[in-house]
């Protein structure tokens, strides 16, 4: 019998109850929050120059989107002979403000990860190993790899840390704040087991929290242990989920010594997350970013750390708005996966991805050819780069540096006073 229409008890609500009544299990979903919460990107509009200052044509004028991530001193000092006295902490040069987010080998296939690595290399940006270790097949991409250290420490050892552009400590993830990772044994194939350095077929449990981190000073300890073991050659990033108190948390993380802070909004993707967590925990990245950037500025430390945000950037305009709110760079994952074929069926957790992305089955993985697919990802990011330059030029800017935190470039539409206040922007017409 068909479900009777009911505004509150939707067919989906009823189906979920029946599933749990049958199995007693925690509901598990893939991809990202699928509920109709407000999308603030769509309620902010960008500026363009008219007369009083000119727009700039990116086709004939230099238009700079190069971005540096890493800890910055408050000032530079010079010797009497004009040479630089201040020694800068290691910096990461990116040719675009777009990075690829963490997706482990295990949650996605080696071919998918390799496509991202190849694309990152061509684009002058970085891919992220997630907490699945770096597979030997990707060793040649180590200079564009971000290696992750999560609570399970899978595949983490000295050489892994050294084979990276920077190191990311994963505290949380937007799709499942407060919840760890759990790669089921059936996905731990020989290859996955090799990268993670665990026996084949065993569960890879990476709970929240890190059991050596119970406070901000413990985080400091982990950050500096990573700096020590890599002899201060690698910036250390800390990734957190955007949660209610994120401004205070980020401030603490910055003071704990993180060089880069990655904040993932509640729409961030995942290979698998408990449905209820995915759909109900965390806050929108737009509000979190605005609040964090403002807080760090009030504390006069915004300039010392880099801020990377993620959590469902659908197009280049979302990215431009994020940078105007105050981000240094953004990190994307779902978009490049869609470029590689993902149809958003949200069944990643089943491991049966038709497109050879979120699967370890050899017959499915072989459908994804990195030689072809990385080019689609390159195309996507290059198109976005060009669009970012067009929008920058329209605003009369020729460097992304002048967009960062430039909230006068944004106006809200259909937003309430409190939302505008948090975003730190005026309403359209003002």
């Amino acid at each position: 019998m068909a479900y009777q229409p009911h505004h509150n008890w939707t067919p989906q609500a009823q189906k979920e109850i029946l599933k749990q009544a049958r199995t007693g299990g925690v509901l598990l979903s893939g991809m990202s929050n699928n509920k109709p919460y407000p999308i603030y990107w769509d309620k902010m509009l960008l500026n363009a120059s008219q007369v009083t200052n000119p727009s700039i044509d990116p086709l004939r004028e230099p238009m700079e989107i190069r971005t540096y991530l890493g800890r910055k001193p408050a000032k530079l000092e010079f010797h009497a002979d004009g040479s630089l006295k201040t020694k800068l902490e290691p910096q990461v040069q990116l040719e675009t403000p777009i990075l690829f987010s963490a997706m482990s080998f295990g949650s996605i296939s080696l071919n998918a990860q390799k496509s991202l690595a190849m694309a990152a290399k061509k684009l002058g940006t970085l891919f992220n190993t997630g907490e699945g270790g770096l597979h030997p097949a990707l060793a040649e991409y180590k200079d564009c790899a971000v290696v992750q250290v999560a609570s399970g420490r899978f595949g983490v050892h000295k050489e892994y840390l050294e084979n990276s552009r920077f190191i990311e400590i994963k505290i949380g993830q937007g799709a499942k704040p407060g919840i760890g990772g759990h790669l089921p044994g059936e996905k731990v194939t020989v290859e996955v087991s090799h990268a993670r350095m665990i026996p084949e077929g065993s569960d890879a449990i990476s709970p929240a929290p890190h059991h050596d981190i119970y406070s901000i000073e413990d985080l400091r300890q982990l950050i500096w242990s990573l700096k020590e073991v890599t002899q201060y050659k690698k910036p250390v990033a800390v990734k957190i989920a955007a949660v209610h108190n994120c401004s205070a948390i980020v401030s603490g993380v910055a003071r704990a010594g993180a060089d880069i802070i990655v904040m993932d909004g509640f729409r961030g993707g995942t290979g698998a997350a408990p449905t209820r967590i995915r759909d109900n925990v965390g806050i929108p990245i737009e509000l979190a970013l605005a609040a964090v950037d403002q807080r760090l500025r009030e504390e006069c430390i915004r300039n010392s750390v880099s801020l990377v945000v993620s959590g469902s950037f659908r197009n280049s305009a979302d990215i431009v708005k994020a940078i105007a709110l105050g981000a240094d760079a953004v990190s994307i994952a779902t978009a490049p996966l869609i470029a590689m074929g993902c149809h958003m069926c949200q069944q990643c957790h089943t491991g049966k991805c038709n497109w050879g992305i979120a699967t370890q089955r050899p017959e499915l993985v072989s459908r994804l050819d990195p030689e072809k697919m990385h080019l689609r990802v390159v195309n996507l990011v290059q198109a976005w780069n060009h669009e970012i330059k067009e929008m920058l030029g329209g605003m009369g800017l020729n460097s992304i540096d002048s967009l960062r935190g430039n909230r006068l470039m944004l106006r809200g539409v259909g937003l309430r006073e409190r939302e505008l206040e948090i975003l730190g922007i005026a309403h359209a017409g003002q």
Partner: protein
Amino acid sequence: MTLIAGKRTFRELNADIRTALETQNTVCVESVNGQRYIGSGLDAGKSIVLHGTPGNDMGAYLNGGKIEVFGNGQEAIGNTMNGGEIVVHGHVGDTLGYAMRDGAVFVEKRAGSRAGIHMKEFRQMQPVVVIGGVVGAFLGEYMAGGTLVVLGLGNPQNLPLVGAHCATGMHGGRIFLRGAFSQENISENIAVRELTVDDRAELERHVKTYCAYFGADEAEILDVPFHKLEPLTARPYANLYTPN
């Protein structure tokens, strides 16, 4: 070569240790006072001897090297250790051998909470932690491989051999406990078994090494019965989830 740690910062001290180890294989450090990260990532063939109290994360990411401490240790010794050996002639704090993958840690006396959590093994990599005294709560939490040994020696206050919530979420490896322990401190899904012949051989090997380092009586230690804890299933959470 001997270095004096005194009140120097960890960054200065560790840089000096690294420099010294470029030209020699062993360095001795006197009057260590809480400096962190000593010997982090130390490679095979290199060794450090410490006198005093090394700070947290001593031997983090240890990569085959050896650290011997004459004194007590603090928190997170051997964090994410990938090989090598750590010997502590004294007590140690919490989170000993967090996520260690290979190598051995010998602690003469007691260890704090959360020792050996996230320990794991991979092929020939089989980590071992031997604790001479008693140990705090959450021993071997989420343990996925390797061997933990708790001897319970020198326990005048008669503290429990292992604290509460021992082996929560354990899904691999083995824990050898010497003498009596409170069953209520052992988590569900954990089997308490007699040692097999192979287990006994492994245990004796570790006890022998322990005695060699700390001068304990091997026969006396092995005279008391041991039990082995191991997970009932390698997939404790296999039925936790329902695809939605």
